[in-house]
């Protein structure tokens, strides 16, 4: 039963992996408030508001999940470090941790998805280029 659920979690993570990697394409923070991005991508005030909402919700949720993962990691560590090891309890805790990890990855990805939806295909592609250029400018 446990190994089944672990395998399922692993499958979900593997399925999400390419998408998770894509999450790095979006610049950090509220980049839409920088004229550099806003002007080149023609982001309207209404879109800025929507991006603000999306960002606030996403980062709050990520912070919650991170705190939850920290707690579950501590619990797992406690379970493993016990003198009389309870294998089932340890694996249950690991499963819990893995499911939170999957949720965390999905939440992070949902942010990129939201940005992609809001900007549309063309502007999203342009955003990636603009971001790459911006990173180059920052390194100079």
């Amino acid at each position: 039963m446990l190994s089944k659920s672990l395998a399922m979690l692993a499958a979900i993570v593997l399925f999400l992996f390419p998408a998770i990697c894509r999450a790095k394409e979006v610049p950090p923070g509220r980049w839409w408030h920088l004229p550099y991005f806003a002007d080149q991508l023609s982001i309207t005030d209404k879109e800025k508001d929507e991006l603000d909402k999306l960002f606030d919700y996403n980062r709050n949720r990520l912070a919650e999940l991170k705190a939850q993962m920290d707690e579950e990691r501590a619990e797992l560590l406690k379970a493993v470090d016990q003198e009389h090891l309870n294998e089932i309890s340890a694996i249950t805790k690991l499963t819990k941790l893995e499911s939170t990890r999957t949720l965390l990855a999905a939440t992070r990805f949902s942010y990129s998805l939201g940005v992609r939806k809001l900007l549309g295909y063309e502007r999203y592609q342009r955003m990636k280029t603009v971001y790459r250029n911006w990173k180059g400018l920052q390194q100079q």
Partner: protein
Amino acid sequence: MKKISHLDEKQIIEAVTDERGLDGALRSHLLECPDCRAQKEALQGRLARFGDISRGEVPLDFRKPRVPEMSAGVLSPVWRIRPAFGMGVAFALILALLLSPLTLKRDRLYTQDVVYREMLQDEKFMTEIEKLEENPLPGFYVGIGDPGDDERDIQTPGAVNDASVAHDGGSRNA
């Protein structure tokens, strides 16, 4: 018809202090007779002058306090009774107006400096999230089974007796 003579001094005084106490016939005479009326008005005038003089002579501390009708307080607005409260309300209104989305400019809220700082913080936060995603296990368990992290973990058979390896089989990094 009975003829009424003019009011005497006592009746004139009574007419000034409490006219209703006078006899009906005397009251109607007072209304009709200009001499008696003039006497009554002269006495009233003298009394009023006396009152004015006495009010002027009384020290300030002994004067009867007079509450102006306008500021009686029953129906006047709260801010006229408590100026501090009024000022507080005015301040809160100004603050609410300044902070309302209608007046607050987005550009003023997100200055470039603020956005840059938040971008750096967010980048750091997202790096932590990525690390958690990559490996949610506690640090010690991450090291196990990942020889790429530390090449010294790869031991040659001859090196097993090395002092850095604990007798219980645990790694020196534990």
